Structures are given as structure tokens and as C-alpha cells.
């Protein structure tokens, strides 16, 4: 089982991630699953009827707006980084947290590397599925790379100039 960082700890991941081309027929009734956005948009009704818990994942080119009205149905929202240098999911994260007040787990998936964790945390992520060849225990330290920040973001709603 893959380990992820959640909060400030390394924990086993109990969720099953479904690929973009997964079909509804593959699903079991129980078990916690994170489904691709397209499956949610097409099969919301069936997915809600399952016993297991539900999460959704968005690719970098998919928009937070498309699930803005559905947030109550998700225990996890995962945002994909197809490559770590693709920064779109940072904006999606902030929209989900700041604009749509999403309170559940917000997880980074894909090409997630330790040197991006600090930024991700600031944008509202609280769970990180590091790329498999990276050690999540070592990566924990990077959540504390900086002891002070200038601008307001999800983790710190006041800019430094309102605090200094």
C-alpha cells in the first residue's frame, strides 16, 4: 500500500485511485475510491448510491468550477500534477478552498516532489501522494522550508503587511 503524507504524518493510503479510462462496472459497492472527474459528471447518481466513501480527482486542465456545487459529496479531492512544472493545480486548490469553501481532504497526486510541498500546503493541500520513488518521510521536512511568508494564501489568510 502506498504511503502518503497527510497532515504532518506519513500514513498508509486507504483510497483506491481510478484511472481516467476506468468504467463504472469495475466498481465494488464498498471501499473508498477516488474517481476521475468525467466519471463523476456522468455517473454522479450511481456513485452517490455506493456504500464506500467517494473522492474525485481533477487533471490539471480540468476546472475547479466543474465540481463547485458538488463538494459535499467528496471526502477527498485530488488534484493532478502531470509534471511538477505544471502549476495549474495550485490555482484549482486555492479556488476549492478559498472560493468554494471545500473543507475535506485536498490531495496532490502525480508528479509530486518534496520541493513543491511548501507551495502546495500554502495553496490548501493537506495530503500529498509523493511520486513513488520519493521518500515521504524525508519529504516531511520540506513542509517547513520557510518560517515566514509575505502574501496571503489559503494557509495564512493575512498578508505579512497586516501582521508585521
Amino acid at each position, binding site marked *: 500500500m502506498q504511503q502518503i503524507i497527510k497532515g504532518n504524518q506519513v500514513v498508509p493510503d486507504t483510497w483506491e485511485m481510478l484511472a481516467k479510462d476506468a468504467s463504472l462496472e469495475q466498481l465494488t459497492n464498498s471501499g473508498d475510491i477516488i474517481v476521475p472527474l468525467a466519471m463523476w459528471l456522468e455517473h454522479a447518481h450511481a456513485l452517490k448510491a455506493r456504500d464506500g466513501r467517494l473522492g474525485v480527482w481533477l487533471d490539471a486542465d480540468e476546472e475547479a468550477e466543474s465540481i463547485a456545487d458538488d463538494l459535499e459529496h467528496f471526502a477527498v479531492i485530488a488534484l493532478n500534477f502531470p509534471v*511538477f512544472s505544471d*502549476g495549474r493545480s495550485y*490555482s484549482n486548490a486555492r479556488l476549492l478552498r478559498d472560493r468554494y469553501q471545500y473543507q475535506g481532504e485536498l490531495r496532490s497526486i502525480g508528479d509530486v516532489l518534496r520541493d513543491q510541498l511548501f507551495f502546495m500546503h500554502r495553496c490548501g493541500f493537506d495530503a500529498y501522494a509523493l511520486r513513488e520513488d520519493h521518500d515521504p518521510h524525508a519529504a516531511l521536512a520540506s513542509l517547513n522550508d520557510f518560517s*515566514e511568508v*509575505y502574501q*496571503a494564501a489559503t494557509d495564512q489568510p493575512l*498578508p505579512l503587511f497586516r501582521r508585521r
Partner: protein
Amino acid sequence: MYIYDEYDQRIVEDRAKQFRDQVRRYLAGEFSEAEFLPLRLQNGLYIQRYAPMLRIAVPYGVLSSERLRKLAHIARHYDKGFAHITTRQNIHFNWPNLEDVPDILEELASVQMHAIQTSGNCIRNTTTDQFAGVAADELIDPRPWCEIVRQWSTFHPEFAFLPRKFKIAINGAEEDRAVIGIHDIGLNAVRNEAGELGFQVLVGGGLGRTPMVGAEIRSFLPWPHLLTYLEAILRVYNRYGRRDNKFKARIKILVKALTPEVFAEKVEAEWQNLKDGSATLTEAELQRVSKYFVSPELESFAGDDAGYLDKRSSDNGFNNWATRNVQAHRAPGYAAVTLSLKQTSIAPGDISAEQLDAAAELADQYSLGEIRSTHYQNLVLPYVRQQDLYELWQKCRELGFATPNIGLLTDIICCPGGDFCSLANAKSIPIAESIQAQFDDLDYLYDIGDMELNISGCMNACGHHHVGHIGILGVDKKGEEFYQVSLGGKSGRDAAIGKILGPSFAAIQMPTVVQKLIDVYVENRTPEERFIDTYERIGMAPFKERVYAADN
């Protein structure tokens, strides 16, 4: 000058520490090259032709004698005794060892400097007018605004991985010496009818492969909303800018594809959600930052210094220097002085460790310890008493700073080119040198008058060739270096992109080509015309005809 408090200091120290660990992990083989690349770039570290190149941030070009001495020390101990002023007011070191960079960053942090976001696909150093705070034509001092933007953009968590690099420039004067029209965002200070301060916002300017002058998306943005509005622009760009093709990833391509009107609507819609949020600037913050930029106590003089004027009429060499390298100051009896780093046979913008120390000395002695870097790759002493100018000139001559060519043909903007840069298609420094050598007669140079000649070694246009009256671009033709010439580019308020003259030339032809262009100008000009004016009146044809005439 802005002075760090404990917060600012902690952030640059944390960065130095973070980068030390990143380098350690890289050397231990924990990163692939591709993974380390953006991390080192966001710290200004390139791997170039011969060695790493480290770009150090000089936020909006403001330096002090203390900082210059530190840079001299770094040049001596970690480099080959040289530094280079870039076309975005920053500093390059061309020969540091990767292993030493964490130490260099620590040294820099000790004088409140850093290399944060000097490269990479993030928000870069905010640039401005090198005469900010002393220019006679200034509406507002842009430096506090630059500092506010610097702080906001430093490690902005949402915008660390943009589609492409992002450059902001701010102008607060009548003339636009910051060339805001060629930046991703250009901010121009304006007052509305009620006398309130705000910014005209231009978006989508830039040079490179698709040169463009920015389009206005807002004519007046009240100043408290500056950061929330910037945040809205950046968010729209981060989400919708192209990421599939590096050459189409700058914001200008998005603005053009959507049209400026539609882009503005998208920004406006995003902004409605951010407006009046906590990032809204406060009077208290503006005051806090502005107090670092209050004009220092200057002596009061009734007007121009008589001794200075006398020397100008009696000493022709001094008068030449004063005409070109001394700029008007808003305080009577004072001047701003440009130290020319455009001596023939020295790469434009290069400065030795000894010169850095000497410039620090001059700043202490004549300019209240302050000094500026300019995008023209020179240095500026902003607070010089006119009565000291003659003495200063003599010292400058000894130090190699007195070349009286500011704003003339030999004051060439020039990127490092193929001698250093691994992106370059061609060398640029030797071209600058050969042109400087061709025009080494000072009287002739003065007769030619105001002229901007800019050279880039590749399409990326670090040498701003598109906005040179004469622009020179290095191109690669089947492995050989050639040079394409453009005419009619302009920086400033009426910024314009030059037009290509025709087929490119070999390096050896370049001095002659420029000579012919100048000949056409001299033969056709009216007494009051600059090169650019004559070009605009008579057009490309006579220049083209002369340069490509068959007998050559």
C-alpha cells in the same frame, strides 16, 4: 533604500538554507537533472557553456556601497574577478562553482540580497526607472510600489510554476525609462480627475520570438487594489496560458488569442472575487514602505553651481562627459551621474571587482552611499552635488567609468551571447566591440547623436534588439553565425518593434553595415532629426538600398 526587518531577513536566510540542502541532495544524486533544473533556475543558477552562471537579483536596480563591496568580494572569491550588469538591472557571475553557490547566497543574505526568482517560470525581478526618486519628470516614486510587488511576488505559492517567465515593470515618470510596454505587465502611475493615485495596466508586452507592445486592459486601477488585481491577472494566466509549446507560453500569446478586451473581462471577473480581500493594500503599508524611499536630506542650493558651469565652458572633455553622462536632478545644484560600462574592448555591462569596489567608494563619497544599476547596463550615482562633478569626472576617467557615450551609438545594450550563454545562436559581444571600434571618433559619435543600438545573440532578445533604433540579432544559418538587422525600434512611451532590413550578414560585415546605415542618416537628416526621426520620415528603402547595393 528598503531595509529588511527581521521578517524579510528570515525569508532570505531560509532560502539560502533551503538551497544549500537542495544542492546537497543534487550532488548526492537524489535529483534528476530535470528535477533540479527549475529549483536552481528559481535561484538564478544556469548551467552555461563553460560553467554555471548565477544571476543575482537587484530589485528595481537599487544598490548601495555595502552591497557593491559584497559583490566585489564575491567576484574575487567565487568568480574570475568580474561581474556583469544585465539588461534587467540584475547582476551575473559567470564562473561560480555549483558547490559554492549556497555560500554565495549566504554572503548575499548578509547584505539583504538574494537570487530569488531571477530565472525560471515565475515572477521575476520587478524593474523600473534608474532615475526613480531623483528624476525631474516624476509623478510618483515607483520604488515603494516595486518593493510592494517584490514582496507579494516572492515565493508566491500559486505562481511558482507559471507557463513561462513573467516580468513586471513600473513607471512613475512622464518619460517611460522602464520600458513598461515590453513587459508581461506594465504599470504606469496615473492620477484620476479627483487627483487620486492609481495605475494604468498594460498586459502582454514582450520581446522574444513574438515581439509585442503591451495592451491596456485598465486605464485606472486605484492603488489599494494593485495586488488583488495582479493576483487576478496571474491566476487567469496560470490557468489558461499555453503549456503545450514553450514558444507560445508567454502571456502575450494568451492576450492576443483572446483579444485584450476578452482577456480584460476574464481578469475583471476573477478580480471581483479577490477585490477588497486581505491583500488589499493599506495606507499603513504604503507609508511603511515609502518611508524607506524618502529623499535623503540634501543641501539646499539656489540653482546650478557656478564653478561647475565654468568648468564646462573651459574644459571640453569635461563638457562632453557632462553633456552625456550627467542627468538632470530634481534638487537644484544636484545631478545624477551615469558611470558608463561601455568602454570599447570591454563587454558591455562588464565590471571588474576593482571597479565594483571603486564604484562603492564613489557612491560613499559623492552619492550618499547609493548607486543604481540600469537596464542599459550602466551604473548611476543618484545624488551628486554639481560642485563635485569635476572631481568625480577625473576619478571616473582613472577608473574606466568616464566614457562620455551615454545614449550614443556606442552605449550598446548587449546580451552575453554565444561567449557565455548556452541559448545563444551567435556571439554578440565581439559584434558590439567591432561596432564600438568603428565609431571610436568622439566628435563623429556626437555628430550622430542620440541612438540606441541593441544586440541580442538569439531570439530570446535579452539584448532588447527589437526596440533598438538599430537592432542586431544573432542567427544560426547551417551552423554559422549571421546577424539580422532591424530598424525603427523604440523604447519609451511610444515603444515600437523594429522592422527587419533584409537578409542577414556575416559578423565581419557588421561594422560596415552600421556605417552605411549611419551614412544614409547623416546624408538625409534635417538639423534637428535623430536617427530614428530620419528613419521614420524617409522609411526603410534608402537604408536598404545602400546596405545591399551590388557594388558591395
